[in-house]
C-alpha cells in the first residue's frame, strides 16, 4: 500500500488554534502518513522558539467561560485589560489538568516523527522576522513548494 499524504496549512497564531495542526499532524504520522505543515501569516507564531500564545474571549461567543460567564458577561467587557491573560492562564491550567499535551511537546513529537514544517518565506519577510526566531529543523519556502506536496496529498486541510 502506498503511503498516504496529509498536507496542512496553519494560519492562526492563538493558543487554541495552535492545537489542531500539531494534533492532526502527529497523529497522522503515527498512522503512517507522510505529513507536511505549511505555516503562514499568524501561523508562523507556532514555529517560534519561545511560544507565547494566548487565547482571547473577545469576539468568540463559542468559548466556554467559568461560572457560565459566556452566557451573561457583557461582550464589551471581554476587551478589558487583563481578560486575555486571565483566560489564557485558565485555559492552560485546564489543559494541564485534563492531560492535554503541551504545544512544545506536540511540536517535538511532530519533529521526531519527521513531519516537515515549512515557514512561509514571504510572511517572514513581511513581518520582519528573523530565521533565528524559529526552531531548528524547519524549511523556509513559498507557495509553489507547498503545492509540490499538496498536489499529491490525500488530505489537505486549511486551518
Amino acid at each position: 500500500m502506498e503511503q498516504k499524504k496529509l498536507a496542512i496549512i496553519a494560519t492562526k497564531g492563538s493558543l487554541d488554534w495552535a492545537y489542531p495542526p500539531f494534533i492532526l499532524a502527529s497523529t497522522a504520522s503515527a498512522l503512517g502518513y507522510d505529513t507536511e505543515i505549511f505555516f503562514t501569516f499568524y501561523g508562523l507564531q507556532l514555529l517560534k522558539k519561545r511560544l507565547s500564545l494566548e487565547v482571547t474571549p473577545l469576539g468568540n461567543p463559542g468559548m466556554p467561560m467559568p461560572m457560565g460567564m459566556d452566557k451573561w458577561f457583557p461582550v464589551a467587557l471581554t476587551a478589558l485589560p487583563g481578560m486575555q491573560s486571565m483566560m489564557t492562564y485558565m485555559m492552560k491550567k485546564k489543559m494541564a489538568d485534563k492531560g492535554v499535551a503541551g504545544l512544545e511537546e506536540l511540536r517535538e513529537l511532530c519533529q521526531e516523527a519527521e513531519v516537515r514544517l515549512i515557514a512561509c518565506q514571504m510572511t517572514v519577510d513581511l513581518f520582519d522576522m528573523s530565521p533565528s526566531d524559529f526552531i531548528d529543523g524547519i524549511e523556509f519556502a513559498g507557495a509553489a513548494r507547498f503545492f509540490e506536496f499538496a498536489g499529491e496529498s490525500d488530505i489537505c486541510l486549511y486551518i
Partner: protein
Amino acid sequence: MADFDLELDASGLNCPLPILRAKKSLSGLAAGQVLHIIATDPGSVKDFEAFAKQTGNELMESKEEGGKFHFLIKKA
C-alpha cells in the same frame, strides 16, 4: 489478560498522546510481540481500533476494568 512483552501506562493522558506513545513503544518491539496499554481517555477505545486498522497491527483485546481501559496490540 493474555501475556504481553511491554506495558505502557498512558493513564491521565488525553488525545492524541496515548496513540503517539503507543506508536513509539511499538517501534521498540519485534514483529509478533505484544504491547499492553492502559489508558483513562474514553476516546482511546475508538482510537485504538482505528489505529490498529490503519497500521495493520492487531488489536487482540480491548476492555474496561476498574475505570481504566486496557488494550493489547500485537506488532505486525
